[in-house]
């Protein structure tokens, strides 16, 4: 078990193993998406209150989960990079950032599309929305910093530090915005947000969440492989691989 992880941490083995893994992950992702969308869009009954438009939740909720998962995952990867100096952790983390930002953006856009017919407004300065927007800013700040630094290794360490500082901030932002707004107005989301969900809706939601998760892992492996080829283009194993 441990030797497997040790092997995985070396770029050469990672490249080989991920190459075998990607087609499988891709197939699972496609399967999950098809079944999730089928159950979500055709099988699940319309909501008694919101009609058909609640179905946007099947994209919105997984995207929001992914946006938070990826940030946390990046922080873990950078902690690993910081402690054990494993190159691969940084490659994975920096390949994740753009996807994290996209999921955050997707969650904001779908939320706003849903908000217009439901709440009658595209945007409210509510706790969840505001903390999600700040999460987007954190991702964009990281991407800007990493792309501003020429040297890849310096960029990785600087970006990692920023992500780790930012992770201290995330729970603070999340809760602070909640306390901050409850003084001004009653909670509007939390009431709508906690209907006891029926299994016929929960199943597609979980399928979609899994599909998003697999989609992320497939794509991040593809990106990490490309990144590895670029960074290690002078190393022996790549020369061996491509002649």
């Amino acid at each position, binding site marked *: 078990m441990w030797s497997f992880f040790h092997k995985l941490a070396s770029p050469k083995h990672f490249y080989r193993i991920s190459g075998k893994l990607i087609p499988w992950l891709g197939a699972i992702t496609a399967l999950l998406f098809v079944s999730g969308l089928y159950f979500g869009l055709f099988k699940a009954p319309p909501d008694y209150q919101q009609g058909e438009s609640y179905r946007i939740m099947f994209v919105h909720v997984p995207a929001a989960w992914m946006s938070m998962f990826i940030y946390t995952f990046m922080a873990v990867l950078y902690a690993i990079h910081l402690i054990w100096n494993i190159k691969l952790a940084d490659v994975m983390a920096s390949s994740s950032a753009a996807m994290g930002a996209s999921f955050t953006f997707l969650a904001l856009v779908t939320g706003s599309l849903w908000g217009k017919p439901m709440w009658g407004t595209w945007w409210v300065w509510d706790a969840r929305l505001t903390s999600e927007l700040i999460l987007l800013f954190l991702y964009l700040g990281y991407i800007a910093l990493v792309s501003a630094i020429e040297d890849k290794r310096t960029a990785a360490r600087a970006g990692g530090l920023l992500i780790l500082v930012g992770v201290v901030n995330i729970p603070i932002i999340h809760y*602070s915005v909640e306390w901050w707004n409850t003084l001004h107005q009653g909670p509007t989301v939390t009431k709508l947000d906690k209907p006891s969900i029926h299994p016929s809706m929960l199943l597609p939601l979980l399928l979609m969440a899994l599909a998003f998760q697999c989609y992320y892992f497939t794509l991040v492996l593809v990106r990490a492989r490309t990144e590895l080829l670029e960074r290690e283009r002078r190393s022996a194993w790549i020369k061996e691989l491509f002649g």
Partner: protein
Amino acid sequence: MNGLASAFFAILRRDLMLAFRHRGELANPLLFFLIIVTLYPLGVSPDPELLRKIAPGVIWIAALLAALFSLENLFRGDFDDGSLEQMLLSPQPLSVLVVAKVLAHWLVSGLPMLFLAPLLALLLDMPSKAAWALETTLAIGTPLLSLIGAIGVALTVGLKRGGILLTLLILPLYIPVLIFATNAVAAAGAGMPVEGQLYFLAALLVLALTLAPVAIAAALRISMS
């Protein structure tokens, strides 16, 4: 320990002396602070009722921007003339030395804001209770701004055009400070208790005092490598 303390005070004294030799620059962040606040009655509305309502936010946003503006040069001079490299090489822990620099920065830019704030509270027609809360939040909050901001400055000091990037990195990290501080001031103005928000700000300050110096030192090492 003695060596550490003397290194700490040597850097503090040096930075303060440097600041007082450039007396003109010393006033710039303060003027910036004042001017930003002045823009609101001109740009939004001179209506005292409205001004009183938005005053905490206006003053605090001006304080954030002024801190950002003044922080930009925190490590720039030392980076350019090589004394930052000397600090990295010194036998004393870098994280303690940067605290001296941040403290010096706060003494010349954050502390004067405290003296200017009552005037601004007057200009924006804030009730006296809210003005007191504003003073307290600024007293706890401005060192926080210096500490958090210094992490971003340390990360961008090696880059040629770090200014806009710095804004992008630091302002999202400033948001919790902004939220708790303005909330406390608004609550005080409405006659509500503000201890909760103040304790939270103080907790943030303790957290920043313990963790930020380590992060600043690490960021400097990354930038100098």
